[in-house]
């Protein structure tokens, strides 16, 4: 396992080094912005962090590489979604370094945004990748030591709501998030006609109760 991770890490490093957005000419793209930020025609990466450890980590304890694709074609398994990721859940160990290779297979923008990271290290607690249609982005970030489930999503209007929602579980996590395709239910919207209409439920329950009551009454009387 460790071997695989090391290999993946090396591959990730290679990718990071080759990718012009994060490579040698990184400063060409962002002369004035906060560190870890890059932006061009193919999209942007914010909160890129290859080496700064969170305060509660003594060392990087794990190396992971996430290869994730985004697009309308990843919704087939989940009826009622329109946009999706190739995977909607990832598990890593605390204090891990994670390289994300994000490939957008649609012709419109998509994002892979992770929220809830420490704000002293990541601007607004966010690691954010945006890829223009048909483009890929690569970014690296390091998670802190606590067991926590992080929200990953695309913040273009209605993309998260219609399926582009995932979770990154660090350690044992802090419970599943709601409405992750293939993982968890919707918090607010029950499915099916019956449960949407409380009057219908009360009537149905009342009818069943009465039928059983009458049947039982007759049965015991005879």
């Amino acid at each position, binding site marked *: 396992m460790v071997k695989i991770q090391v290999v993946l890490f090396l591959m990730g490093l290679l990718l990071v080094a080759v990718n012009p957005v994060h490579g040698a000419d990184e400063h060409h793209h962002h002369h004035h912005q906060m560190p870890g930020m890059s932006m061009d025609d193919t999209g942007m990466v914010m909160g890129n962090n290859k080496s700064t450890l969170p305060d509660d980590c003594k060392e990087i304890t794990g190396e992971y590489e996430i290869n994730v694709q985004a697009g*309308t074609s990843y919704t087939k398994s989940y009826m009622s979604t*329109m946009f999706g990721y190739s995977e909607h859940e990832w598990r890593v160990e605390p204090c891990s370094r994670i390289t994300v290779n994000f490939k957008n297979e649609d012709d419109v923008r998509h994002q892979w945004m992770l929220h809830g990271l420490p704000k002293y290290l990541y601007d607004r607690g966010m690691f954010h990748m*945006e890829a223009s249609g048909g483009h890929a982005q690569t970014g690296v970030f390091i998670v802190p030591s606590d067991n926590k489930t992080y929200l990953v999503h695309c913040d273009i209007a209605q993309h998260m709501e219609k399926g582009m929602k995932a979770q990154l579980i660090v350690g044992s996590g802090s419970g599943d998030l709601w409405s992750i395709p293939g993982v968890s239910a919707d918090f607010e919207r029950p499915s099916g006609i019956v449960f949407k209409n409380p009057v219908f439920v009360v009537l149905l329950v009342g009818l069943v109760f009465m039928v059983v009551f009458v049947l039982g009454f007759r049965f015991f009387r005879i």
Partner: protein
Amino acid sequence: MSRLLRVLLLLILVLAFVVLLPWQWYPREWRVWYADNFGASGFRQQAETIPATVSENVEEACPPDIRGWRKSQSIAGVDIAASPNCLADNPHAVAAFVKGTNNVGHMTLMDARLSPDAVVKGRDLDGDGDPDEIHIRLEVFELNGASPDLDVPVTQYSIAPGVTPGLWVFAPKSAGMSTENFESLLAQPGLRLPSPAIRVEQGDKVIVTLENTHYMPHTIHFHGVDHPFMTANGGGNDGVPVASEKPVMPGKQRSYEMQPRQTGTMFYHCHVEVQAHVLMGLNGLFVVEENRPNNWVQTFNIGDGFVRHSSVAVKEKYDREYDLHYLDLDKELGEKIQQSNDPRIVTQLINRDYNISQADFEYYTLNGRSFPYTARDSLIVTAPDELVKLRVVNGGSEGVALHTHGHKVTITHYDGVEHPKPSRITRDVVWIASAQRVDLELSTENDGLHSYGEGVWLLHDHQERGVTTNGFGPGGNVSAIVYERYLQDDGWPMTFGMSWNNYLTSGFYQRQDDGSGVTPLLPGVEKSGPSVLRLVILTALAGLFVGLVAGWLWRVRPRG
């Protein structure tokens, strides 16, 4: 109990019943006879008055301009006029729209929240000092849509305090989040109703790419703009699913091409299921400006209203220019997208369940807002002896009878075509049919005809439902022509009438299930209690009466 006592008791009961029975329940003739013989009944005090409530949580009329967007400034070499209104357009975005997002710095793009390829301006083909190759990228955004996890609309945009109808809009291709920030549910300022006015120069080689970021299929039809039916390589170019091309599916894109030979104020809109898509907000102004040297036009005017960087030809004749976009919205249509989070169900609700022939329209907007929000960014600010150009479009399905208080305006163009000068009409109510455009010349010369002098003069649809929101007034598309002398420093008009506080509370435009207003802002009457008590006593008496009669009958004929 003796027989006499029982009969007496029954009589007393009957008498009490007769007295307590409401007066109006007796036949009119009996009452007339009674009054003729015994006179009128005594005076009865009416129920107490509930005093008018002082509304709580009044919104700030004019939010402070902390980012300094209102002042006149120069960004990336583009001169941007001061914005007189309270809420100004983002000047960084204006600069990027004038120069092209490919010709401004990274910082300007970040502040504008635009993608580097949102407006790409290329070569100067006629050598007159401005770019003539324009590539525009539009995305589609849903405002006030559904969420699987929240019972409030997401990517929120309020047309009036507390009014958040479901909307779809075109917007220039942006970068980053659709919300203000991760903690906020509010749409970022670049995403709003109406779909923005687009400006190009006559003869420009224009490509408009629709990047469909929405979960429903869409197209763009360029209404009134000179464009070929097919693109150079044989693709559909008219945007009509039943005639020229298949719709652009979610996650896909298509480019439309045109080189407009004629100038004028035109229109663009989605042509998929038009009875719903157009009225959801997918329509906007498309202006072809006259060709002039060094004419860098402001490709987008977000939210319409004041044009901060007018074209050369407009500046030659006019002191200021405003884009006015009127739209009526059906509350029930907007609710369709909030009823389900499943795109298949939303498709059914929009395409098969919604019946526009049975529709009524609750919201009337000017530049995507209803009164009092119109006063934040859609006042026509002017000064004496000016000429102001108004480009007006009716994007809605009902007509607009646009009335200008204190002024008579002159119609210079119908549907982008200039009206010959001798036959131009000057009037104070201008009818604008659906999809129609009129260019109006507002003169502020105080001659008793064009203007009656300085002031805060209302500007509104004179079909009275147009000045309501959800049936409550004042609301709807009410705005005003305000002279600078009557404008406060923050851009809010000086008014001398009633307080606007009630209109700036979220409850004012809400209705309860029974149709009445949610907030008791006006004086009311306490619901009178005695009549209910009286009915209860009557019922009790009737029960006692029946019981006694039954008991008596029981006694007379006992069983066995």
